[in-house]
């Protein structure tokens, strides 16, 4: 259930160029959020909230971590928050990645691009706890934007790609797919062109994709963030029905 909560800022760290990790204390969200869900954060002076995906939850410490990139004025202001300050957030929002049907020793490929990587990290930690074998392909613009490489390495085989080749392999995440060992299904999150390419390349595989979009209400009322579908209804709302969908459920 979505609640309007006050989250206390514990820390804000720049972990790569324009990329920030923010730790927030909140009991309700840290105990209820599942991988794939997001927070809709209010930034004073801004009409629209900012949807930010959850990168980890620690129930013991009641801490939720979010990672975001400073793209506009809202995220820039968010990066300027000091520990002890408070944020108003709606959350946890959306349906997470389905993982219940996976068995220990099943093998999964996780693909993340840029600021689509944080929810993949949250998912990876949950899958690791269930004894799932993990491989990662992570795409970044260039070397300066790479984050969480060490964290992913601890969870499974990790391939890094950069658009310009300044770190890891040069190219796109899909270029690396032939290099990974066999797997049962994939999960992906990242920019739309990447998701389109992943869906096409892995058309024969079962997969789940998490989408991002400019959002209004974040709760399913305004119809700002829709994807087309082939079912009789014709659309899904990313905020309410997603942000995670089975790859064959939506048209991209």
């Amino acid at each position, binding site marked *: 259930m979505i609640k309007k909560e006050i989250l206390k800022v514990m820390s804000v760290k720049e972990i790569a160029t324009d990329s920030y990790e923010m730790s927030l204390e909140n009991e309700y969200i840290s105990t209820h959020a599942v991988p794939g869900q997001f927070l809709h954060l209010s930034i004073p002076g801004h009409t629209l909230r900012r949807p930010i995906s959850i990168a980890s939850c620690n129930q013991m410490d009641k801490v939720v971590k979010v990672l975001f990139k400073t793209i506009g004025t809202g995220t820039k202001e968010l990066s300027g928050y000091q520990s002890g300050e408070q944020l108003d957030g709606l959350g946890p929002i959306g349906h997470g990645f389905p993982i219940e049907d996976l068995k220990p020793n099943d093998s999964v490929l996780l693909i993340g691009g840029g600021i689509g990587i944080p929810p993949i990290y949250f998912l990876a930690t949950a899958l690791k706890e269930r004894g799932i074998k993990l491989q990662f392909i992570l795409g970044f613009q260039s070397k300066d934007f790479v984050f969480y490489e060490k964290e992913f390495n601890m969870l499974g085989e990790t391939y890094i790609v950069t658009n310009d080749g300044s770190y890891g392999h040069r190219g796109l995440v899909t270029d690396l797919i032939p290099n990974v060992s066999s797997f049962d299904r994939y999960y992906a999150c990242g920019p739309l062109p990447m998701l389109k390419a992943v869906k096409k390349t892995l058309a024969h595989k079962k997969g789940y994709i998490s989408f991002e979009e400019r959002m*209004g209400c974040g709760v399913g*009322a305004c119809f700002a963030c829709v994807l087309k579908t082939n079912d009789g209804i014709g659309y899904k709302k990313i905020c309410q029905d997603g942000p995670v969908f089975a790859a064959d459920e939506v048209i991209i």
Partner: protein
Amino acid sequence: MIDLSVNLPGLKLKNPIMPASGCFGFGREYSQFYDLSKLGAVIMKAATGSKRFGNETPRVAETASGMLNAIGLQNPGVEKIVEKEVPFLKQYHIPIIANVAGSTIEEYEQVVTTLNHSQDIAAIELNISCPNVKEGGVQFGLDPAMASKVTERVKKLSNVPVYVKMSPNVSNITEMAVAIEAAGADGLSMINTLTGMQIHLPSKKPILSNKTGGLSGPAIKPVAIRMIYEVKKHVTIPIIGMGGIQTAEDVLEFLLAGADAVAIGTANFQNPFVCSEIIDELPNILNKYQFTSVQEATGGAHQ
């Protein structure tokens, strides 16, 4: 004791606060936050003759003190709305206002005919002001003769009172309002969004896939207040005011300008509890400014 009640054609409101069309879906999402029976009324998302997908995304963009939207009247079609959404809202025992949109006069008539089959619609908000559809919609709201024509045709058919939702994208709002009143409208609903555009610097292209969108939020409040103030001087039918309301003080400002009741749109996105909180706060604000009722405040700025 402050009296918040307002009686308008077809609408017995226990308070003057209602969520604006398009910003509240069909109520389901916001019903998880508070009991919708608290609202004065509810205005549903626009209904068209058949289902519409709407525009491609991106459909929203933030602006200074506001936002642009170009949803494009996405809705499941009037029949589904009557069958699935109206029964859901009925449980709250508040007046349900149906927002009616169309590309042609015939489509407006078709929607109204279907709505006539429902006993649960208290009034129609005739949407001749949506700026985000390629045909119809706002073209009826920009020309007094066309606005009159569609108002007359819909009035002739509808079983319930008709409030015409006006576009602010006109050079003479009073002329429009007078024409709509003369055509038989029971009330006015004003204002819809102002057409705007925002260009994304990295791509050097408009952010919205529809290129233009409707500007809403606090940025447009002074425009709404001015238009309601002007129109109030020339019409006698009631006005449902809207445009950037965020607080109970804003509500009082609309009442003083000449609104009989108000609708709250964009502010729901920022705070899902906003309508409920304003209903709680309104008596304090009326009291603070020496009013004992909502009705007493309406038009106060004209005295």
